């Protein structure tokens, strides 16, 4: 069994350096072709008709008039009479036409009669959800230091024990916290462009799962999966919402088949917002008990939230988040709403869990009048990932970068400049980030050309560049000499891009293939030079040469070495399957600390970001530039869900009323303040190998920013995003605690 390893730390030429993206110029000059950009001869434009009601029954649907609209080529009805529709945006019909305008006109000509039924779309108040009979029990997690006596009823014991712990605590904090649903808002909406060649289909699908979606299209079309190719060179955002081919991906292929013409079906922005992904909301009622030092001893919470009609919400297992006191009871209630179904969103559960619980820790600091930093520090021993040391070190770094000690003041006690007050907040997070299964095919040609293929995708992480860096580093070549091909299901299977698994996964397979290939080439070089097998083992590739490590003269150029391959290229498969043994090339498990500095205008309620510090451990870095970008991007996305974005449901009509980018607020370039990204990198990090980085830094911003606002104004704005109206409500005393709580978990 061959051995795999990374080059010794400090000896790399590409790995760990700041490397420009290999496809950067294409992206920056419009040459990169996304699914939306595939333009084919005789292509039809398809658009969908989406249900305007949150809950209704279709009385009738009639496409006759649509078919006679000039330019309309195909009309597909997707909903049937009598069908019950349970959320706004559900697809009713699809029209394909010669132009986008004709398709839209065709949709307008479809006549639908609805019987509107009662809906429930707002889950912020548990009492209202209960009254509407929309709640159900979800999970419950209990951990207690003391065991129940054998003869005692378990539930009664837990109830009494939690009560006893709370009564014994020096201080008890009661709080209500929440975080609304947000959507994925991929700037390239979901969809595909499909073309048939005979019985074979190519779907240019906007997907973060190139290797896994062909079968999803083939199944409903009753095709062998081998007859479907999914192709996606570039994807305009996914964030967890583009793992599936989806209904519209199948419809597009069907219309293309039926009309005998290529079809482009990309969702319109409103429909994309309504049905193509959102992150579950979460709300919680908490009681925590702590000692005078701020060390939390007991946590008792009831949380609720929704992921659509099925209920769901945030997993109670990660509430409280990271900081997990020895006694806790976390109960969850699911709320069923007439809203589009949720999808995985960057670090599923974690951003909400962090915002629902580390805010309570900060309120504890406020109540005790001690520095929030110290409260976090004193509770680190309860970290669920046992990384107290890493957090401690990172907190120190972050505090220096933020100048925390000099800037911090007790909650609400900062100096006001007119109506402006400032505040600091922090939060901590954890994530796995293990590499996914990945295969690749590396080809080295007798002329020295190097190419590698993987059925992977570039979600924005710089996948091509990372693969190129690993191969070029291993073979001692400049990055430009390695041709990386990803984005086709015809290439060797590689995992979907989700959960921070891609860079570690593709680095595994490409390093393995490259090391294996180099061994084979080294053997030929050794043979040619007449040096023994022992010398061959010591051969390295560097700066375009293959040579015996301690004897640079005993070697030859890369081209000369490859010429030894003879007529045929060398093909090597790289394979990585996680889960068996621990790999020397990758691992998992990170801890990060973030701090926010905000200014709040108490007169207008506007919160401005002044500074945001993100300190993150990371393992071995492949491309320092793209790694940093992941953290910058996560921080900005975090600022987005902390201060700006929210799916706003209208209780009266059941409509998602800001389902566009004009009213669904995202931050702009001027809204982000100063962002400082720092990697926590003792030498031991390199030894851990590659770890994914996409999710962790997006987790902490909600709590960190909420805590900073609370520190500034002296009261908690309980629900994210912290919009001006919520700040004003909190300052007016109406926001902190909803007047009507019900007690205990319901139903």
């Amino acid at each position, binding site marked *: 069994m061959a051995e795999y390893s990374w080059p010794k730390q400090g000896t790399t030429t590409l790995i760990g350096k700041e490397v420009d993206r290999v496809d950067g110029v294409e992206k920056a000059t419009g040459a990169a072709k996304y699914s*939306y950009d595939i333009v084919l001869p005789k292509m039809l434009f398809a658009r969908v008709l*989406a249900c*305007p009601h949150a809950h209704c029954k279709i009385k009738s649907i009639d496409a006759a008039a649509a078919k006679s609209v000039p330019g309309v080529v195909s009309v597909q009805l997707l909903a049937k009479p009598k069908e019950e529709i349970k959320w706004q945006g559900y697809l009713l019909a699809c029209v394909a036409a010669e*132009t986008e305008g004709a398709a839209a006109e065709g949709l307008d000509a479809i006549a639908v009669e609805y019987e509107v039924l009662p809906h429930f779309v707002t889950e912020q108040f548990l009492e209202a959800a209960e009254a509407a009979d929309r709640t159900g029990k979800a999970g419950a997690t209990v951990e207690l230091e003391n065991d129940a006596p054998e003869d005692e009823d378990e539930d009664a014991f837990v109830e009494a024990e939690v009560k006893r712990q709370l009564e014994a605590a020096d201080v008890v904090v009661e709080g209500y916290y929440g975080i609304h649903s947000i959507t994925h808002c991929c*700037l390239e909406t979901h969809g595909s462009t499909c073309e048939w060649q005979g019985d074979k289909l190519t779907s240019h699908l906007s997907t973060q799962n190139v290797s896994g979606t062909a079968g999803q299209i083939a199944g409903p079309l009753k095709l062998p999966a081998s007859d479907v190719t999914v192709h996606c060179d570039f994807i305009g955002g996914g964030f967890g919402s583009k793992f599936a081919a989806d209904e519209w991906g199948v419809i597009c292929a069907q219309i293309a088949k039926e009309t005998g013409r290529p079809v482009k079906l990309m969702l*319109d922005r409103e429909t994309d917002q309504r049905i193509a992904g959102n992150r579950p909301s979460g709300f919680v009622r908490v009681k925590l008990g702590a000692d005078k030092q701020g060390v939390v001893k007991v946590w008792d919470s009831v949380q609720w939230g929704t992921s659509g009609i099925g209920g769901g919400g945030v997993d109670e297992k990660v509430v409280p988040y990271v900081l997990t006191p020895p006694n806790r009871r976390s109960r969850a209630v699911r709320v069923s709403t007439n809203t589009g179904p949720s999808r995985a969103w960057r670090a599923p559960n974690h951003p909400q869990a962090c915002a629902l619980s580390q805010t309570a820790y900060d309120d504890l600091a406020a109540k005790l009048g001690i520095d929030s930093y110290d409260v976090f520090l004193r509770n680190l021993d309860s970290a669920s990932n046992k990384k107290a040391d890493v957090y401690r070190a990172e907190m120190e770094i972050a505090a220096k970068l933020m100048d925390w000690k000099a800037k911090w003041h007790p909650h609400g006690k900062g100096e006001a400049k007119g109506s402006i007050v400032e505040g600091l907040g922090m939060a901590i997070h954890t994530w796995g980030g293990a590499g996914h299964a990945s295969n690749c095919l590396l080809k080295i040609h007798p002329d020295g050309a190097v190419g590698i293929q993987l059925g992977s995708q570039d979600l924005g992480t710089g996948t091509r560049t990372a693969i190129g860096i690993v191969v070029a580093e291993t073979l001692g070549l400049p990055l430009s000499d390695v041709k990386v091909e990803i984005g086709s299901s015809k290439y060797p299977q590689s995992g979907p891009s989700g959960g921070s698994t891609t860079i570690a996964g593709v680095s595994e397979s490409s390093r393995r293939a490259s090391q294996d290939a180099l061994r084979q080439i080294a053997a030929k070089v050794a043979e040619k030079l007449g040096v023994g097998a022992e010398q061959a083992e010591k051969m390295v590739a560097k700066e375009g040469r293959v040579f015996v490590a301690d004897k640079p003269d005993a070697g030859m150029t890369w081209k000369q070495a490859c010429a030894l391959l003879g007529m045929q290229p060398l093909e090597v498969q790289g394979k990585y399957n996680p889960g068996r043994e621990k790999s020397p090339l990758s691992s998992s498990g990170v801890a990060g600390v973030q701090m926010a500095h905000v200014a709040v205008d108490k007169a207008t309620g506007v919160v401005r970001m002044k500074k945001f510090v993100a300190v993150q451990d990371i393992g071995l870095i492949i491309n320092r530039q793209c790694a940093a*970008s992941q953290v910058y991007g996560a921080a900005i996305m975090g600022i987005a869900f902390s201060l700006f974005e929210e799916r706003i449901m209208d209780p009266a009509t059941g409509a998602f009323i800001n389902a566009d980018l004009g009213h669904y607020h995202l931050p702009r*370039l001027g809204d*982000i303040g100063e962002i400082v990204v720092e990697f926590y990198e003792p030498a031991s990090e390199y030894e851990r190998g590659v770890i994914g980085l996409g999710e962790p830094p997006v987790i902490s911003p909600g709590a960190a920013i909420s805590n900073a606002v609370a520190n500034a104004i002296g009261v908690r704005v309980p629900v994210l995003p912290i919009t001006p109206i919520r700040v004003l409500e909190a300052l007016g005393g109406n926001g902190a605690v909803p007047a009507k709580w019900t007690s205990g978990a319901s139903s």
Partner: protein
Amino acid sequence: MTQPTRSNPSRGGFHRRDFLRGSGAAAAATALATGQGLAADETGAAVVGPGMSKITLNVNGADHAVLVEPRMTLLEVLRYQLNLTGAKPISGDGTSGGSTVFVAGKPVSASTTLALTCVGKPIQTVESLGGAKLDPVPAAFVHNDGMQCGFCTPGFVMAVRAFLNKHPQATEDEIRAGLNGNICRCGTYANVIMAAIEVVKGGARG
């Protein structure tokens, strides 16, 4: 309860079937059109549409004959007739800045500009900044990693190009205040700021 039929959510911008008449744009279009789809109404004003008309658009320095309906946006024509797909359909209403192109030297949202109104005006797309002589703005985007998924990037590159053409010596504060017409979901703003600063320092002017 029964609601009236067909309450499809508004798909703004697709009801542009009104004839363009009397405006400078329509007159220009008429002059350049081949006669297909052309008529004069009873007032004698030139009328274009409602069907296809052949017009000429000058894009990135070259004339292109294209077939347009009055309701067609510049974005549709650039993308689907000229295969210039750098300008992106993101929000459809100009909110995102993703379809930014220059018309007569000014940045506009191609998704909210009718193709007919661009006759006789030079159009410049992001593709013109690429090629053998890479413009300093996209170069700085690459160098500062001002992109992740990259879908917003061409529009952002055009916005930065336009802003720096006007303010070649812009300070960081001016950059932060002046580039708020574009949305990036991946969160590249910090990198875009660095890119713009680099272009200013390099004194590049397009």
